[in-house]
């Protein structure tokens, strides 16, 4: 019966299988024929869709550390039900990022080199190490869920002892590499379009990742409620509006902070005049700011919209769209203008990216189905506090 259920074709299952099949073929080509034959990357556009997607993946996985900090450090236990999905999202997001990085590397077989060959002046080096350390943190944070499933309580005890330092380390690693993704572009002041280049890039990246990471969790709550409906026997997967509204307020605060910082940056560096210069970049910048910042801020300012699930869904999509535009504008749009060439990803680039995203969603589904991801899993601490 179970097999039949799995094999029962649904629209998205069929689409996923097609995407993954095509993606696997593309991956095969990518590794056998090289980057030149399978991508549209070239000397003037050395970074393309894959790197852009790494930016997205990391930005959208940011909830892993913000929610963990909210619950475990600031003791706001109301948000406890979000912790496990957030950590899983972060873990899967980072896995996609790492896979994409390996695909993107010219010499993927040398991926381990940064472990032994150090150049501490490189932002990329810092990011690599933060990614490694933070992924370890995520494994430690998620380990109890897996151990619980197999009734291995002994290690959980030890994990609990180190849990707070682990959470703090996770927040610090995240802070560093989230902002460092912005620092990557500090070294190209002449190349990156001034609409996006700023010495405050790391701070911009950090604030925007907080807003969009939380939006991603809100968005994901809807996906979870949609994918695991109650009438199919799933528990605790439904929307918890008071939690979502609370998170959306945090999104509002982060968006306003980001907007103020951006305004400060524009006024302080005399970049206002750029806003009235008609060019493709300017239009994309407006699109980014309006969908990702102005619309969500104005909607979220009303309690009515924060508490209406339909609007929360739309707002979270807006914020995520804003992040997609921002990260890709920085990593692709903003650099293309100065390179004097055009770049649009090749079929193989797109299919490999799509495949990894589908596999990520699939992995989330499997874990969500087989582990206690949505249980109102209360840590001992919460229980103790209640008693």
């Amino acid at each position, binding site marked *: 019966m179970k097999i039949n259920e799995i094999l029962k074709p649904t629209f998205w299952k069929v689409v996923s299988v097609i995407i993954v099949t095509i993606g696997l073929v593309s991956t095969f080509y990518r590794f056998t024929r090289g980057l030149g034959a399978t991508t549209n990357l070239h000397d003037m556009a050395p970074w393309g869709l894959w790197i852009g997607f790494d930016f997205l993946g990391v930005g959208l996985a940011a909830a892993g550390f913000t929610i963990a900090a909210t619950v475990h450090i600031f003791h706001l236990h109301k948000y406890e039900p979000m912790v496990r999905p957030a950590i899983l999202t972060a873990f899967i997001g980072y896995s996609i990022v790492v896979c994409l990085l390996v695909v993107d590397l010219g010499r993927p077989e040398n991926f381990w080199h940064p472990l032994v060959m150090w150049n501490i002046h490189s932002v990329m080096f810092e990011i690599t190490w933060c990614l490694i350390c933070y992924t370890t943190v995520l494994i430690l944070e998620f380990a109890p869920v897996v151990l619980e499933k197999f009734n291995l309580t002994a290690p959980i005890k030890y994990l609990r002892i180190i849990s707070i330092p682990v959470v703090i380390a996770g927040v610090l690693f995240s802070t560093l590499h989230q902002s460092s993704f912005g620092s990557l572009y500090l070294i190209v002041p002449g190349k990156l379009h001034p609409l996006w280049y700023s010495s405050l890039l790391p701070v911009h990246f950090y604030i925007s990742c907080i807003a969009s990471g939380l939006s991603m969790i809100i968005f994901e709550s809807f996906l979870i409620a*949609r994918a695991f*409906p109650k009438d199919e026997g799933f528990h605790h997967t439904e*929307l*918890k509006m008071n939690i979502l509204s609370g998170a959306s307020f945090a999104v509002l605060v982060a968006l306003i902070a980001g907007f103020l910082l951006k305004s400060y940056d524009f006024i302080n560096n005399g970049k206002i005049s750029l806003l009235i210069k008609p060019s493709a970049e300017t239009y994309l910048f407006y699109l980014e700011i309006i969908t990702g910042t102005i619309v969500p801020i104005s909607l979220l300012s009303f309690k009515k919209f924060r508490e209406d699930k*339909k609007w929360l869904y739309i707002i979270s999509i807006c914020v995520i*769209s804003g992040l997609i535009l921002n990260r*890709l504008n920085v990593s692709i749009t903003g650099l293309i203008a100065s390179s004097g060439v055009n770049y649009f990803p090749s079929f193989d680039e797109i299919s490999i990216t799509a495949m990894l995203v589908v596999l990520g969603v699939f992995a989330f589904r499997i874990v969500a189905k087989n582990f206690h991801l949505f249980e109102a899993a209360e840590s001992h601490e919460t229980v103790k506090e209640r008693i």
Partner: protein
Amino acid sequence: MVAVFVLAVFLFIIAADIIVLKFQGKKHPAFATAIPQYGSSIHDENDISIPSDIIISKGHTWIKFGRDGLADIGIDAFGAAALGKMSVVKCADEGKEIKKGEIIFEGSYGDKTVKFLSPVNGFVKAVNSNIIGKKISGPYEMWGIKLITDSKENKRQFLSGNEAQNWMKNEFIRLKSFIENFTPDTGLAGVTMYDGGKLSDELASSFTAEAIANFEKEFLSL
């Protein structure tokens, strides 16, 4: 260009999913009509949607005017679920005249009984004896009483369609704060509601008689 492309793909997938769900006859959770403040099973989407031929009285009874001049009257989704699953204990007697505001049904949540008031004047033509003692599921299919009534009665005091749904949502919201105020163990009720657990049938039993009277006054008066 790449940014716009990726964004377009993202939005396309979201839109496609909504269309796919539509084909499957389901509703996306973001757009399904349910009470946002609750994730609870008692407020399933079918509970809040109201058939178009039905009008709702502010005393949480519903009326359907039939072509035969008879009006079906029953208890609405809110009444059927407010303090747990409710079952009808008593209906007004067959063959009697009933005035607006007189008791038409008595229902019980666990060990507590509440009274529903007749929304119109009329003559009780039939009583659905099938519903007595049963828990209500599908509130709008289970009529309780057929009345012969003057259908020219002012219908403006009743609600229907979207207006009724919004009002119903609001009633659930009001109920939430009501429960919070009147449950002795506030923490417990709050937790069950927030975490999306079921409202247990014991909830009503923890209410005092005073709280039940208040509930009738707050929610069941016309």
